[in-house]
């Protein structure tokens, strides 16, 4: 099993969780558990999203109007709440990605110079 993310990376995660959720949802609508699985899978198990931060984050995004939610049946026929990116969310994802790259470049530049 890969090592659990250290505390440093979890701080970074908190700031960028919204961005990662938006990214995960950009492929297709999915429910909360699937989002967590998808992020785990995309990060090659490096990232475990705790429910404690996932659901408040989803609530926050919905309140911002970036995701919309709907109760639907899963493939197994269970009722689940599916989240979906809205148009505003898609725009926000673009902005967030750009801003993230900008941030990373800046940090990188500083790290290289010293």
């Amino acid at each position, binding site marked *: 099993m890969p090592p659990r993310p250290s505390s440093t990376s979890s701080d970074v995660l908190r700031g960028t969780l919204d961005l990662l959720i938006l990214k995960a949802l950009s492929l297709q609508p999915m*429910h*909360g*558990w699937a989002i*967590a*699985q998808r992020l785990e899978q995309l990060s090659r198990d490096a990232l475990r999203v*705790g*429910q*404690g931060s996932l*659901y*408040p*984050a989803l*609530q*926050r995004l*919905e*309140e911002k*109007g970036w995701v*919309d939610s709907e*109760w639907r049946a899963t493939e197994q026929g*269970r*009722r*689940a*709440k599916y989240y979906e990116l*809205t*148009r*505003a969310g898609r725009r926000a994802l673009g902005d967030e990605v750009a801003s993230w790259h900008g941030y990373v470049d800046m940090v990188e530049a500083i790290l290289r110079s010293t």
Partner: protein
Amino acid sequence: MTNLLNRWRKRLRALVHTSAVDRELDEELAFHLDMEAQKYEREGFTPENARRKARLAFGAPRQYKAETRDARWLSWMPGVMMDLRLGGRMLRKYPGLTIVGGLAMAFGIWFGTLTFEMVRLVVFPSLTLPGGDRIVQLRLWDTEANQAEPRALHDYMIWRQSARSIDDIGAFTDATRNVFADDGEARPVATAELTASAFRIASQKPLIGRVLSEADEAPGAPPVVVIGYDLWRNRFSSRQDIVGRSIRIGSGFATVVGVMPEGFAFPVAHELWMPFKPNVADQSPREGPAITVFGRLAPGVSIDAARAELVSLGKRETAEFPQTHAHLLPQVKPYARLFMDPKPQDMWLMLSIPLFAVMLLGLVCSNVALLMFARAATRESELVVRSALGASRRRIVAQLFAEALVLGGLAAAVGLAAANFAIEQWGKRYLVENMGTLPFWYDPHISATTVLYALGLTVLGAAIAGVLPGMKATKGLGTRLRNGTAGAGLRFGGIWTAVIIAQVAITAAFPVVAFIEQRELWRAEAYDVGFPAERYLAVAVAMDAGPNGATADTARNAKYATALEEMRRRLLDEPGVSGVTFVDRLPRTEHHYRLAEVEDPSRAAASSGAESLTVSRDSLRWVSEATIDPGYFDVLESPLLAGRAFNSGDVSSDAPVLIVDEVFVKQVLHGRNAIGQRVRFIAPSTSKAKSPEAPSPWYEIVGVAKDLGITSVTSRNRDPGIYLPADLGRSGPMYMAVHVKGDPLSFVPRVRAVAAAVDPALRLAELQRLNEVSNGVLWFLRLWIRITLGLTAMALLLSLAGIYAVMSFTVARRTREIGIRVALGASARAMVMSIFRKPLTQVSVGVALGSVLAGLVMLTEMGGGTISATGIGLMLVYGLVILGVCLLACVVPTRRALSVEPMEALRVE
């Protein structure tokens, strides 16, 4: 858009259906847990282990739920909701406080809303037309006479040609015209003769047909008219073929070219619009009819720029016409301020009214605060326990605020509904009585702004009524908790005592004011005019001026005189009519006043018959004057007490005569024989610098009449009256009094028909029974009485509430002491006395103060006389009643005190 709607729907749902949304969150988290467990099962764990592992990984769902809830929109709302629900519960639990406090706050909000709406109308009128704030009035101001100069036709022409900063400059004159309906009946209609640009300014399309055009204003253009919706519906039964029909207006005809939609009344309150066709002769400077000029500020031009342009145009005029224009200054004002334009210094006075209302609300809510505080004191142990359980002071204050907010919300609903009622019932009529006609943009109603204002008042009131007592009751709660001395820390300050005493004083004094008003009303209602006025029909008879008032005055006067005589002749032929007469002012209404001097025989002898021009000011008396036609006293069936009536020769006689009434004989002549005495009139001296105008010639008194109500109904004393013979036609518009058998009002249609047959230009208005002419004034008096009584009731309610609060607080604070004293054998009577002492003192001082106040009011109102024994007796009785009623407020707390069980009281600690 749908996205946005969806979001709001969800937000509201989360707010309202909190539990359903919480259940969904539970379901979502459970689903997550299940999926996690299934994953572990797939990895080879037994179902039980998989579940346990999933739960371990999942952590504490309660915390997630709390965090998720906090991320919701207005997540603090449910807490507030709970506070509000609790507040509602408290209000149900203490219905007395709810009713008294709610009524008091409703009164404060009602008064605040009402004054706000009325002041808003006066201080910030806005024109209810598209782009109404850009519509302006242009006028000439005479800086020497300090008044507007309405004869502005000359300047209007120049403005229209030269002004670049104002578009669509137009003008109107105001007239009342007789309009004949299909049934041949004539009614006076408010008519504007106005330029076609008015319809562009008002941006209003006609309902049917067209509006007036520039071509209609050309000399020789066929006469056309546009009519208003109500006129079309009521007088022409909404006929669709009205356009193109010729209707009779006064003595002429005009073709209807259009009907305006409902509610259109530009320029003021008009129902009929005719083209503006000024005479060329009237265009010399400061000549012609009175006109009102209006226009719309050109795009991008400020009103100041327009003013500057007009002033520079005005300077040119002043240079060219120094004789007429030396003191004329052109002005540009917002059109909405055409009628009421308070000066800056009055503006503050106007704005002080809502400020006063806010202060009144503050006072009212302070009383409610007193009640809340008293109740908080009785609940003190609860507060202490809550505080001990960890409720912060802020939390407890917030709870009291929420309670006051719920109360305030209820009060605001009641207050707004009552304000709406008052505006509908009284506000509109008040404005109409004050302004004559109500311009279309003065539409008093509860607007959204007013509701917002009322909500602001509510929050303010709740803050005073809830936060203040909350702060006071929770002050030093911790110390009290430690010392275990509940109640000892709370105290009523001297300020409350002062407030209560003041309120009781007002309660005691106000009914005297109401009584004085009521007496005025009784006196006005009982006003005796000396003849059975209810059997007479009173009609104001006027005659349309010719086109734009251009008809020569003499010809018009002669026509008017002939018409009046002809009408009298025809009416006398009608069955049931026993008399018709004319007078310039009706009995009971305000008359013209003149300064009269009675000839002093001794002085006249000394100057041996020469007309003395020196006037001794001491002998002058103000007298009421009426101009009557010779048959006046006969028709009113009130024969002269002495001398003779007027005859037809008196009008043109070289030796002018007059008739005085009995009040004149009594007050001016001190009972001397009036016949043969001489009276003349002096122009009141306006300025000391200028020499007084020469007095009128001497008039000989030829008759003495009864007192026939020549004084206004509101006046306290009857004024001495004089009657002068009317020169019909030249004495101005007259009222006609018709003596009829049966109800005078049933005779109205006949009078209309006769007037229409005699001369279509005759306009009849104010058709009413002669005894009802002062009903408007009486309505005002009644309104004032109602307001005074309402204020009295409010002051009484607040006094009672205050006394109750103090009493109940005192009892709560002294529970222990009472218990000990009862245990030590104090009698119930001694206990009652000791509890009663404080409120008794307060109420007594209040009643005494109020009585002094009332006495002062009565003394000044009665003109320095003395108060009768009955008056003093009544005041004493009323004072005792107030004392009794106020002490009733002590009953409940006293009973509570007496039911204190000694053991219980001791155990409280």
